[in-house]
């Protein structure tokens, strides 16, 4: 089978494996299409973990876990009919207004077109150094016997410190190779590039949804429906920002986006987790998106694992702070804490297994305090040129926070501090590991700084894009203030910059609440 049909088959298999769990967690949305193959890749990564832990065969476990996931979904929908994706009350659908669905369709189309345009890079048959040396090398190992896999993972003669890295990219490649019989690096690279793009499209579409939901709220607030140009601006801005974010992300990530590296995967999945977990409304569907993306990030690379762990904690804290008092007793059972613990267990299984199996791992020695200072300086100097977006994002965030806090609350985007906390988690985890570690840092920085700054750079651009969408609603909000927010019927919004108490971001009052509020879980 040649590369093109093999790619189609591989993506269909991954999508099919992930389809039911994605629908159960997320519902039927545009992003369900981009999340399904990522969920399939997560199942593949879990299959790799179980295969390494207990034996059998990798594909056997992939099929078994897919079947178990599907059975749990069907059982859940049978037991609780209101959880079916096609049932009302998913909490993800904004109110319908004229042009609203059209904006979603145009946004989705724009994101697809921009992604396809950028994926033209695949016409250059590049296979990245690490892809050939390591990520896709392990795809082959996963298709060997369990005994052989253990030998390859442990053999000191192979000198591969990174063979203990999390398995998602390698596992997705192994599924592609196995179901198509086309065991070429080229197929692995193309499949990984498409998975990267799915993660990016999911994050970018959040801007489209933010814009159209903001427009919907503006249109439906006040005494009569408003559908003028001013109220439509956020919807337009969301589509434009979503498309631009695709081009920006490819610019930041190339050539690694299309040459088989794992860095874009964890960076983009973590970005999506920030977007849906820390910025969007905290509904059940959003939490389902977070669960998929945060596990994808954590099972891709150790940098992603640390970032994912911090994001899981941040999302749980945000969920707890926004939890209605009458639901507080459910914070453990099927609540944010239980969900967070389950997600941490999923991403933590692989590193624990690596410890138990004593595979090769990078040195865990620590540098001295003096060395840490010089290492921190080297990191600052190296990271700076790749994070120039902060020169734009910080002033916009400060001005927006001081002047547009009220508009931001109307948009129902969460407080900007959450996005900055997400950005800091990724930046801090990478910089912290480099500062504390004792490996020679300068050669490493020269070779990899581009890749390890992908996540904070994209998070910075996402913050800028969010402010563009939020601020585009300012004229409509100003226009509506005298009539739409009479003191008798609307809670007063305090002036000034947002404080810690403003992080609460309850689900939109315009969006129907689920009939039985619950945490995501199948």
């Amino acid at each position, binding site marked *: 089978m040649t590369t093109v049909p093999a790619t189609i088959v591989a993506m269909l298999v991954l999508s099919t494996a992930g389809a039911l769990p994605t629908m159960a967690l997320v519902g039927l949305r545009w992003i369900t299409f981009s999340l399904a193959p990522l969920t399939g890749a997560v199942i593949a990564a879990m299959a790799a973990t179980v295969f390494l832990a207990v034996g059998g065969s990798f594909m056997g476990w992939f099929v078994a876990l897919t079947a178990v996931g599907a059975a749990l979904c069907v059982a859940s929908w049978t037991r609780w009919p209101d959880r079916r994706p096609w049932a009302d009350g998913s909490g993800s659908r904004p109110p319908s207004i004229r042009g609203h669905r059209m904006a979603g369709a145009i946004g989705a189309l724009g994101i697809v077109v921009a992604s396809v345009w950028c994926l033209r890079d695949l016409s250059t048959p590049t296979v990245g150094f690490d892809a050939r040396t390591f990520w896709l090398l392990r795809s082959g190992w996963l298709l060997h016997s369990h005994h052989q896999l253990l030998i390859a993972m442990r053999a000191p003669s192979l000198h591969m410190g990174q063979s203990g890295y999390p398995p998602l990219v390698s596992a997705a490649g192994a599924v592609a190779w196995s179901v198509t019989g086309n065991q070429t690096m080229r197929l692995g690279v193309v499949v990984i590039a498409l998975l990267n793009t799915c993660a990016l499209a999911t994050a970018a579409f959040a801007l489209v949804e933010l814009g159209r939901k903001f427009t919907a709220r503006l249109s439906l607030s006040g005494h009569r429906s408003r559908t003028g140009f001013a109220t439509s601006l956020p919807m337009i801005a969301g589509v434009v920002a979503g498309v631009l974010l695709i081009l920006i992300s*490819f610019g930041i990530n190339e050539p690694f986006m299309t040459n088989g590296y794992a860095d874009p995967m964890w960076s983009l999945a973590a970005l999506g987790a920030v977007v849906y977990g820390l910025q969007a409304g905290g509904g059940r569907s959003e939490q389902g998106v977070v669960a998929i993306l945060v596990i994808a990030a954590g099972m891709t690379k150790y940098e992603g694992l640390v970032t994912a762990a911090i994001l899981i904690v941040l999302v749980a804290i945000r969920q707890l702070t926004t939890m209605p008092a009458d639901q507080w007793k459910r914070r453990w059972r099927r609540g944010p804490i239980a969900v967070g613990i389950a997600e941490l267990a999923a991403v933590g299984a692989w590193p624990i297994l690596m410890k138990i199996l004593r595979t090769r791992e990078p040195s865990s020695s620590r540098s001295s305090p003096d060395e840490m200072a010089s290492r921190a300086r080297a990191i600052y100097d190296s990271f700076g040129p790749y994070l120039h977006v902060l020169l734009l994002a910080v002033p916009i965030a400060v001005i927006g926070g001081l002047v547009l806090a009220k508009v931001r609350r109307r948009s129902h985007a969460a407080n900007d501090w959450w996005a900055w906390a997400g950005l800091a988690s990724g930046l801090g985890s990478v910089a912290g590991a480099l500062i504390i570690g004792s490996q020679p840092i300068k050669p490493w920085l020269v070779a990899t700084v581009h890749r390890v700054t992908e996540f904070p750079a994209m998070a910075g651009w996402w913050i800028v894009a969010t402010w563009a969408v939020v601020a585009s609603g300012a004229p409509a909000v100003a226009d509506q203030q005298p009539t739409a927010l009479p003191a008798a019927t609307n809670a007063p919004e305090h002036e000034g910059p947002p404080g810690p108490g403003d992080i609460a971001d309850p689900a939109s009052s315009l969006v129907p609440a689920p009939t039985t509020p619950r945490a995501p879980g199948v």
Partner: protein
Amino acid sequence: MVGITVVVAATVGLGVQAVHGAQAVSVQRQSTAARNASLDDAYYGCLDTQAHSLVSPNQSVTIYANNPADFIILLKTAGSWVTFADSPSSAAVQLSLRTVSGGGNACRSSVVVAHYATPQHGISERVGSGASVAGQGPPPAPPL
């Protein structure tokens, strides 16, 4: 007014960066990048064919190299499909890379060489065959 200013500043920033992004995408499609990628593909495809000509299925293999570069090249060539031995001493086949002059049957002046622990038909060393790529030395390394 502030809202409009923020929209304009953010949109201009996004737009400029998006243009840079589009240019970065285009760079990957330039002839130099495409040529290097094709050469890289051909080089490793050639070595892969040679390695396949030397190793039977299920033969345990170890990689021997005088320098890290050769080790990495061989690992990239055959690491995903060979059956690695528990230890180098227990391997049935030892794969290594050899630089040759002339390069009639070489992959850019390199050939894969197999040393067998148990000689096959009286032969303890064989040189890979079945593919060749003209030129000298490994192709330019792709970006790290």
